[in-house]
């Protein structure tokens, strides 16, 4: 399996059902051999976008380009994409081998060649021993791998996956995530994956596109999205985040400061907003530290522990502050400077770059 993947581009894709807009003006590029994940809450339009790419749903507007060629009007059976459906959609009246052979059979491939390819595909997903079983006799994880083998056997240059792991339990999901990632490396094809599981998106993808209410909110490498969320929704949906609201008090080269009550917080930003305007900062719980007596940081805040819990690898503290309400802080257990206790007064500190200015899109959300 060597052919390189295709490059895919969506241009201003929209899909309306009556007056309801399921997908609104989405533009995306997926590079050759890239692993892109569409991430979003339920009903955000992920499946609809994937179905447009596969050709099962006709876009209301916009174009789909494959290596620069417009394929918007091409019927699904002529697109040659592999697809793993939400729920797998294995043919219940065929054996595993027959299921996997199906795409080859429709391509009228000779029996000998077909058998060899089916065997190779089943080997790839480690299911050679199950070739003669029916899908109903397999576990969820095995069915998922049959679906994968069936999608890969005809060597499609583009593989579409709709929540391939969502029906599995947590442990199996982690295992298959690794397998999927290894598979992607090995065969070097373009994958477009859909999920509403943010961990899966972060660990698998080269690039993640975040959707909400049918709109593309932000796209980029997982680390980029996590470290520099552009909006409140992204910061909240990918991992956990605290939000600090205040008024812009001062601007300087490479950053600005906001004030809320008696507290001042500095942040790094390329283009500071106007003085006196409202601003919102996102601050990850793991990016704060408990400061010892006399220790300083770019930003510091006083607070009292209102509650805490032990999570094994770390502690989670709820720290009550006068100006920002309750802040969630996580500390690694192994080098926590204190033993947490309710009522304990603490001082939190973090670097300017850790508090990231974000657009407050929650109001828009409520309106939408």
């Amino acid at each position, binding site marked *: 399996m060597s052919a390189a993947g295709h490059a895919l581009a969506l241009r201003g894709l929209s899909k309306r059902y009556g007056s309801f807009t399921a997908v609104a003006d989405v533009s995306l590029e997926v590079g050759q051999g890239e692993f892109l994940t569409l991430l979003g809450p339920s009903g955000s339009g992920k499946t609809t976008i994937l179905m447009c790419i596969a*050709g099962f749903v*006709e876009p209301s507007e916009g174009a789909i380009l494959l290596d620069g060629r417009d394929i918007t*009007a091409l*019927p*699904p059976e002529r697109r040659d994409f592999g697809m793993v459906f939400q729920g797998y959609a294995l043919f219940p009246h065929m054996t595993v081998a027959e299921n996997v052979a199906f795409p080859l059979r429709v391509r009228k491939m000779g029996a000998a060649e077909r058998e060899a390819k089916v065997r190779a595909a089943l080997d790839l997903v480690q299911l050679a021993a199950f070739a003669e079983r029916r899908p109903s006799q397999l576990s969820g994880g095995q069915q998922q791998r049959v679906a994968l083998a069936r999608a890969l056997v005809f060597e499609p240059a583009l593989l579409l996956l709709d929540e391939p792991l969502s029906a599995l339990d947590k442990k199996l999901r982690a295992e298959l995530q690794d397998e999927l990632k290894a598979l992607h490396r090995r065969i070097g094809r373009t994958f477009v994956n859909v999920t509403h599981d943010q961990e899966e998106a972060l660990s698998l993808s080269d690039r993640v596109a975040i959707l909400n209410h049918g709109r593309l909110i932000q796209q980029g490498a997982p680390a980029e999205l996590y470290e520099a969320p552009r909006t409140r929704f992204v910061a909240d949906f990918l991992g956990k985040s605290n939000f600090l609201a205040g008024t812009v008090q001062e601007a300087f080269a490479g950053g600005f400061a906001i004030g809320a009550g008696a507290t001042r917080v500095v942040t790094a930003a390329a283009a500071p907003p106007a003085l006196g305007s409202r601003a919102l900062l996102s601050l990850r719980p793991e990016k704060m530290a408990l400061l010892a007596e006399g220790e300083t940081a770019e930003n510091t805040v006083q607070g009292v522990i209102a509650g805490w819990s032990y999570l094994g690898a770390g502690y989670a503290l709820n720290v009550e502050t006068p100006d920002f309400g309750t802040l969630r802080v996580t500390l690694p257990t192994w080098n926590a400077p204190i033993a947490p206790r309710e009522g304990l007064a603490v001082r939190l500190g973090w670097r300017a770059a850790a508090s990231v200015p974000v657009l407050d899109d929650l109001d828009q959300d409520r309106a939408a």
Partner: protein
Amino acid sequence: MRRQDAGWWLLILPAFLLMTAFYVAPIAQVLAISFTEPAPGLGNYERLFTSESVQRVIVTTLRICILTTAISLLLGYVLSYRIALAGAAAQRWWILAVLVPLWISVLVRAFAWVTLLRRQGLVNETLIATGIITEPLALVWNEFGIVVGMVHYMVPYAVLPMLASMREIDPRLLAAARGLGASRITIFAKIFLPLSMPGLLAAGVLVFIFSLGFYITPALLGGGKTLMVAEWIGLQILDLLRWGLGTMMATMLVVAILATLAIFARIVDLRRIFGGGGA
């Protein structure tokens, strides 16, 4: 996608063409003839108001249909009630007992009734042999025979929709009412009957519209003396060659059936009547 849908539309095409060319067209022609023969206009429909024989046929048909529907509903309801409350294994046998008559040729059934009910038939012979009567009773080739045969044909049709709606009744509801001390009659009147009403209505519509156009049973068991609409139409066309009159009555028959359906479509889910076709 419109273009991709073309293939699926193509699948519908053979049935559509066959249906249009060999079913709808002949029937449309019937409707047309009723306005054109023997002379163009509404002449045939005037007979509805002027001809006594036309009116007699309509009245007879309605009388027999209403009687048939009422009796079929009663008997069918009793049967459905029994089936719905039977255990799973017993239900299968009961349903078979309903389905077999449903699919047995209407001719065979009419023949069986003639065998039983005619003057030298088994019923009369038995009654005479046991001395209950001395003269054979006129049980067939009259309205009584028609109703007996039609009800026999219609009961299974009445059972199916009623049974379907009774099966939707949660059995725990009945058991719970029992546990609260309700009597059998109270449970039936207050819970079972109201909940099975949709099925009862659907069965009523079904039996009534099937009865309206019934041909074979009335023809065989009515002995030519009691004419229902279908047989009367046949007579006009085959023996009297009065196409205009026959097609007028056929049109009225179709109108009556569609009107009944249209009226009850508001109250009854038509899917109950015609099975999973709309599912």
